[in-house]
């Protein structure tokens, strides 16, 4: 099963809708709840990062028999130093993002903790590409 979502930067009122749709789809497929939680927490963090930090982006989710793959691509400022960004507590979130409840600098570490495979590539000034795999 394949899902495609367009994500709008800065629009927090619909942020999380994509992750919520995927959660429902996984529940319907009777995926183990512990796995569902890992998948949706990782996806939600990635989705929020597009909303919080980028201009716009897309999320593609492939639910396969043995794994769930998530491709999160955005156009935006990109990340200058990915290694630094992965550090717990590192955040450049703006005040308006903080007011929405984000900016702990825990999003990328949370993705890493939950994913079996997490690859992230970013070009400063262009955007960011993340690939997340969780095995079922």
């Amino acid at each position, binding site marked *: 099963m394949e899902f495609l979502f367009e994500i709008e930067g800065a629009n927090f009122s619909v942020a*999380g809708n994509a992750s919520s749709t995927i959660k429902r789809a996984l529940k319907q497929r009777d995926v183990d709840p512990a796995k569902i939680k890992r998948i949706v927490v990782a996806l939600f963090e990635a989705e929020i990062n597009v909303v919080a930090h980028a201009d716009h982006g897309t999320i593609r989710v492939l639910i396969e028999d043995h794994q769930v793959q998530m491709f999160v691509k955005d156009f935006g400022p990109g990340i200058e130093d990915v290694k630094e960004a992965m550090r717990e507590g590192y955040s450049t979130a703006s005040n308006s993002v903080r007011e929405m409840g984000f900016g702990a600098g825990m999003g990328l570490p949370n993705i890493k903790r939950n994913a079996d495979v997490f690859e992230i590539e970013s070009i400063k000034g262009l955007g960011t590409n993340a690939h997340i795999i969780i095995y079922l």
Partner: protein
Amino acid sequence: MLMNEIIKRIEARPVCGDVCSLRTDDFEFAFASDLMSDVLRLTYEKTMLVTGLCNVQTIRTAEMAEIKLIIICRGKKCDDQMFKIAKECDICLLETNYSVYRVCGELYSYGIKPLY
């Protein structure tokens, strides 16, 4: 332990879901934060969330983290979009005028345990 007792202690208003049908046994722990990624880090279920953050993202975060009860503090009021998503996700909401600190103090003295 009864949910009613908790509601009384923190002078809470049940604003969404059938809070009284929840059993405190299902809520061994509480966690307080206004930063949602801290909440998304939790791995233990049976946790209630105490927060001053009152927007749709509070509810979405609870949805992803499998949290079934949120206590919204400092007199903040939930809006219709929050109610709608909370209902869809079976999440109960309590509002209270107490601060996060006071709510945590009451819960702690009532025997609700911290996670860390």
